């Protein structure tokens, strides 16, 4: 039995993946600080140039922007990727539903049953990532809503159009989450935990696939390739 090497992610896709991964870690670390400052500034040194909360918020916003831009790239790839266009795997056709179930069966039968082609991104993965992207968009919208509260004057360093756009596009999140600004915060915080759970499963599943499928799946996001058995 021999193995064939197949390319799964381009250099740019892998770069994008790691930018997102690192941004996410930073967003979680700084976001937890903003929600509950869990370490102290040097209280004994009143004259020190400390700007701890401000730096945390700055980092949080910067990685949010990087996140948003990379999300736009990913949204583009959904439709125009030169590999499998992800949207094709999301349409609930019978083929896709069958593939989704087959991959799920493979996972819960602990790899005893494997009835699908693992050489390309499957429907299960596509749905799994779609959930992630939806959560990211939700974080983007709720986050920008929380951010625009600080621009109450209607002005910003880049002009008054920016808060206006933010109000237009994110004010509905207040109504949807329960009617108060606090509900938006709560939702933003809860969704972070959902995203951490998603990351846990994502990392576990990739390692699990690598070990049990024996096709070198982990290398997809590092070297860009994986291997499939040639029959």
């Amino acid at each position, binding site marked *: 039995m021999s193995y064939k090497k197949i390319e799964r992610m381009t250099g740019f896709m892998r770069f994008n993946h790691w930018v997102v991964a690192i941004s996410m870690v930073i967003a979680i670390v700084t976001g937890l600080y903003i929600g*509950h400052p869990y370490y102290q500034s040097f209280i004994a040194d009143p004259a020190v140039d400390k700007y701890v909360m401000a730096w945390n918020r700055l980092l949080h916003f910067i990685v949010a922007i990087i996140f948003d831009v990379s999300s736009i790239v990913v949204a583009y790839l959904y439709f125009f990727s030169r590999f499998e266009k992800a949207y094709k795997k999301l349409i609930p056709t019978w083929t896709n539903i069958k593939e989704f179930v087959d991959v799920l069966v493979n996972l819960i039968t602990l790899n005893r049953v494997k009835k699908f082609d693992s050489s390309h991104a499957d429907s299960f993965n596509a749905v799994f990532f779609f959930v992630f992207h939806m959560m990211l968009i939700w974080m983007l919208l709720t986050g920008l809503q929380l951010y625009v509260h600080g621009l109450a004057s209607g002005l910003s360093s880049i002009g008054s159009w920016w808060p206006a756009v933010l*109000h237009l596009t994110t004010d509905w999140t207040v109504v949807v989450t329960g009617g108060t600004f606090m509900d938006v915060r709560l939702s933003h915080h809860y969704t972070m*935990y959902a995203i951490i759970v998603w990351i846990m499963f994502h990392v576990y599943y990739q390692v699990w696939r690598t070990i049990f499928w024996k096709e070198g799946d982990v290398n997809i996001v590092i070297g860009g390739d994986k291997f499939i058995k040639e029959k």
Partner: protein
Amino acid sequence: MIEKREALAKMFSAKGSKVNTNRGTEYYDSLMKTMTLRLNELEQTTAASKTSISSVLESEGLDRRDFMKWASAACAALMLPANFTPLIAQAAELMNRVPIIWIELQDCAGNSEAILRSDAPTIDELILETISLEFNETLMAASGHAAEEHLEEAMHTFKGKYLCVVEGSIPLAMDGLYGTIGAKAETFKDHLLRVAKDSAAVVAVGTCATFGGVPAASPNPTGAVGVQDIVRGKPIINIPACPANPANITGTILHFVLTGQIPELDHLNRPKFAFGYRIHDNCERRAHFDAGEFVEEWGDEGAKNNFCLYKMGCKGPMTFNNCSIVRYNSGTNWPIGVGHGCIGCSEPQFWDKYAQERPMADTHFKAPSGGVEKTVDEFGLGLLTAAGIGIGIHATASILAGKKEGDE
């Protein structure tokens, strides 16, 4: 159905809190004309109340200069150019032309108290003394049938002209029997609807009247709601906060006297001149927030140094009100100034969602999983633990069972 449709309409038309403080000469010129016309008209009408601002000021030992100082401050508070100051002064003198019916529903009368019980009243508070208060359950001497007759008479005389000021929430549970008033045991709901029907506008004063406030806090046994939840077809102005700041009540009434219209409102029907800015952005402790210097417990070194109260649960970052500028008790101080965090009393559902002495992440809220109250972080860690256990089980099972497959 109608409520659903309204909620949907609101969702897509929610106005931001943006305050436009410079609308150009043309706008202000026409506004000046409208106001002058309106005030001249008002001047022709007979005063509904005998008290005048000059007599009240005199009895308090304040002179014309104090009054004009107040007028220019009020002018700035209403976000009008300085040349409107004489108009503001004139409007204050004509305050006794606008009849007001003030009704008291399910609350603690704290808003009345805030206005009445100051030993050194500000001019804001004195002006409220000169308004033509036709009916006020808390203050008036009449009671029983006499009081009801008085109300009927005031509503009849000033039909369509009076401002209906409401203090307190409206209990709806048990057909509204949690609160009745008068000899005929009229429910608060019927009472409010009857008085609001013939008014020019309804002013909900205090958080109970605006959003239900403390009576509406979970589990809300009396089914309390705010004025805007039941009054339809009338302009409603919300002046929340617990208690509402007398300066904001005066400002709103002053605006009505000046223009005959209600002031510009935000998405919660609050006047933008008062609720257009965030407490956090005008807070004197803001620098400590940015520096990450927080009070960790009451009376610690940070508290002595006036550090930020965010970790003690201050909700300034999510509360819109002008108390950080106007302050309370004749401008003496305000909650954050005396070392307690903001409890977000001018926001909807403040008692359930804002008024805790801890940051949002540590607060006991109703968990999405059910009725048991949990902090957001506890819930999140529970979720992570569950996910971790699930992954652990799957991994162990895979190691034990998966090997057989691999060998075949």
